[in-house]
C-alpha cells in the first residue's frame, strides 16, 4: 500500500514539457516568433515549422524553377540522433498534394511526430538533433534536401 502511494506521488511529480524547434542549417532565416524558418536555394524555398501541439511538421515548399517540381511524398524521413544512435521515422503528408507547378507553393502537414511529454524521456530531448530528409525531383533530377533541426524543451 505504501509502495502504491509512493508510486502515485512520484508519478504526480513528473514534470510536463513543451517543445520548440529551430532550423540550424547555415543560411536559415527566422520569421516571426513562433513562425516558420526559411531555407532556400536557386530552385526551392522551404519554410519549416515544427508544430509540437499538432504533432506535425508544417513544410511549405515553393517551386522557384520553370519546371514542375515533385516531392517523393512516400520517402520523407525524420532521423533523430542521440549520440551514436539514430532512429528514423517515416513522415507523410496528411493528404496527397501532388506536384508543384512553376512559381507555386504548397503546404504539407507531415505526420506523425510523436514526442514524449513528461519525465526524463522528455527532458532528454533538450538539444537533440533532427534531420528532416525530403526527396525532391527538381528539373527531373532527384535531390535529397536535408533540413537540420534542434529541439529545446521547457517545463510547463
Amino acid at each position, binding site marked *: 500500500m505504501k509502495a502504491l502511494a509512493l508510486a502515485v506521488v512520484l508519478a504526480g511529480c513528473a514534470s510536463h514539457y513543451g517543445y520548440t524547434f529551430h532550423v540550424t542549417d547555415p543560411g536559415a532565416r527566422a520569421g516571426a516568433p513562433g513562425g516558420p524558418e526559411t531555407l532556400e536555394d536557386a530552385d526551392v524555398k522551404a519554410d519549416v515549422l515544427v508544430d509540437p501541439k499538432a504533432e506535425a511538421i508544417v513544410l511549405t515548399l515553393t517551386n522557384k524553377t520553370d519546371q514542375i517540381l515533385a516531392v517523393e511524398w512516400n520517402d520523407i524521413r525524420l532521423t533523430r540522433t542521440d549520440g551514436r544512435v539514430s532512429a528514423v*521515422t517515416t513522415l507523410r503528408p496528411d493528404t*496527397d498534394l501532388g506536384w508543384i507547378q512553376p512559381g507555386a507553393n504548397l503546404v504539407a502537414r507531415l505526420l506523425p511526430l510523436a514526442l514524449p511529454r513528461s519525465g526524463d524521456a522528455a527532458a532528454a530531448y533538450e538539444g537533440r538533433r533532427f534531420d528532416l530528409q525530403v526527396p525532391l525531383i527538381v528539373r527531373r533530377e532527384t535531390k535529397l534536401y536535408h533540413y537540420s533541426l534542434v529541439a529545446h524543451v521547457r517545463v510547463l
Partner: protein
Amino acid sequence: MKRAIVISFVLAAIGCGPTFTLPMTADQLLQLNSGPALVAYLSQPDASPSVCDLRARGPHLLAFNDEVHSALVDGFVKGRIEPVMWRRCIELVIKNMPPTQVASLFDELLRAYQSMVKSDHLQSDPAFAERVATIQRLYLERAEGLDGHPAVTTAIFDDLRGALAKQKLGPVGKSFAEEVIGTVDVTHGNWQGRAVDVPLMDTLAAAGNAMTLERFASRLPQPGLREQAARRLVRIHIALSAFDEVRKDAAKVEEAVVRDGHNRVVIAEHKLVRAWFDDKKTPVRYVVVRQHVWDRTATLLGSGEDRPGLSVLPELAFRGSLFAELKGVSRPVTLCGAAQKLDPTPCIAVTDVALDNPLAYLDDGGVHFRDNIAENEVVPLAANAGFSLPVRLANQPAAALQWGLGFEKPDDLDFEAPSAGGRGPDLEVRVDHPNRDRYVYTVSSPQGFAAVVQAADLGAFHVDSRGGTGQSGATGHTGSTGTAGSQCSAGGPGGNGGPGGDGGNGGNGGNIHVVIACQAAVCDVGAVERTIASIGGYAGAGGSGGQGGQGGQGGTAKSQTTHTDSTGATVVDDAGCSAGANGASGASGSRGSDGRPGSPGRVSVDIR
C-alpha cells in the same frame, strides 16, 4: 512440473528469456531453429531477413509454426526487432504462406494495430509510432488478394471509423486511422466519398497525385481500373524522368512498364561501357574470417564504421549502389526495382547480374554471403589484399566491390600423442606466404589441417607435435588397520602404507619437417620457425605413497564391581581397569619417482 512453469513465467516476466551468443550466423540459427533464436538473429546489425524465406537458396527457417509466429510478432511489438528488418522478414514469410494462414496473420497484426493506434504511447513514443506505421504500411501495401478474414477486418475498421467520428484518437493515431480507412474505401471503389472512375484519375494525374494513384493501382477492386491507375502513375513518372529517351518514347515505355513493372535495358543491344559501385550508397565492411581449424570450417563476419563490433555480413542490394554506363542510354542505370513501383527508369534486370565469388550468391536480387564455409575455401583468400566481390553484367566482367579483409587468429595446431607417454605424431608442415600480411599453415600429415595467420599474430600462434604426458604412478596401497584391543588392552599398530608407483616417462615429440615457401613476399623466417616446435611430453608424476594404516582401537574400560557383606562393609569384587590405548598408526609409504620428460623430436626446415 508446476514449479518449472512458474519459474519459466517468472523468468519471462523479468525479461530472462533464452539467451544466445551473438554474432549468430544464419546457419547457426538454422541449427537452433526456434522463435526466440530468430528474434535474436534478426536483432543483430546486418542480419539477413532472407532466413524468413522458406524457399530461400541460403539458410532459412524450416517452418513457420505457431512458436515462430508468436515470437516474431511479440519481438516486434516489444521493439526487439527493428521495423525495417521485421517488415522484410514478414513479407518473405507471407510470400510462402497459404492464404488461410496469411489471413490469420493479418487478423493478428490488425488486432495489434487497432490496440496500438488507440494507445496513449502513440502520442509520446516515436519508436512505438514507427512500429504502428510499419504494420500499417505492411497491410496497405500487401499483394493483391491477401487480406485478413472479412469478419475480423470489418469489425476493426468499423471500430476505427467510430473512434475517428467520436474524435477519440490523438493527432498521431488520427493520422494513421484516416489513411487506413481512406484505403479501405478504395478497396470498395470509393475515394473521398465518390466512386473512382477514369475522369477522376485524369484529374489526379494532371495534378501529379502519385500517392493516390499508387493506392488506386494496388487496391481498387476492378482490374481494369487498377490498370488505368497504373497507366496514369507511369505517365507521371515518365513526365518527371531524367532520361530524354524515356520521355521521347513514352508510349512504348508505358506499355513495357505496365506489362513488366519496369523498363529493362537489353544489354546485348547496349554495349557495356563501364560499371561501378557508388561509394556513398554501398555499405563498407571489413571482412573478418573466423576459422574453426579443427572442424575445417570458417565463418565470415564483418565490422564497419557504422557497425562497431563484429556481426554477420549484410545482405547487399545492388539496386542504387551498382551502376553501369551503357551505349545508347543517356545516363547511368542501376538494377530494376520492385514491379509495383512502376518505375520507367531504364534499368538492368536482376537476371543479367552474376557474381564471381564462391562465398557469395544472388537470391531475389540481393547478395548474400555464405555462412558455413569449408576452411579450404577461405585459404585462397589469404593471397588477396582485400575481399573482392566481382560482378558480371550479361556475362561480361563489369565491376568489383572491394572490402578490407583480415583473419582472426586461429586455434593453435597442437598435435599430441594419442596415448599417455606416446610419441608425438610426425608432421609435414608447409608454410606459404602468399601475401605480405598473411601466412598459410598446412599440416598434411597425419591429417590435412590448414590455418591462415595474420603476420601480426605469428607470435601467438603455434604448431606443435607434443609427446604424450607420462602415465602417473599408481598410489601405494593403504596400510592395514591395527587389531582392536580386547577389554582393558591396547590396540595393535596399523600397518605401513605401500610405496607409490613410479611415474611413466613423457613421450618424445614427433619429428617435424617444415617447408617455408615465401613466394613473392619476404618471409620473416625466424618468426615462422618460432611458431613450430616439437615438444617432449611431460613426465608422469610419481604415485603418492599409500597412507599408513590406522592403529587398532584400544579395548574398552572395565568398571569396578563391589558387594556389601553381612556387616554392611563394601567389598571390592573386581578392581576393573581403564580402557586400552589405541595402537600406533602405520607409516605412509614413500612417493614413487617421477618419470623422465620426453625429448623433443627433430625439426628440419627447408626454405624455398
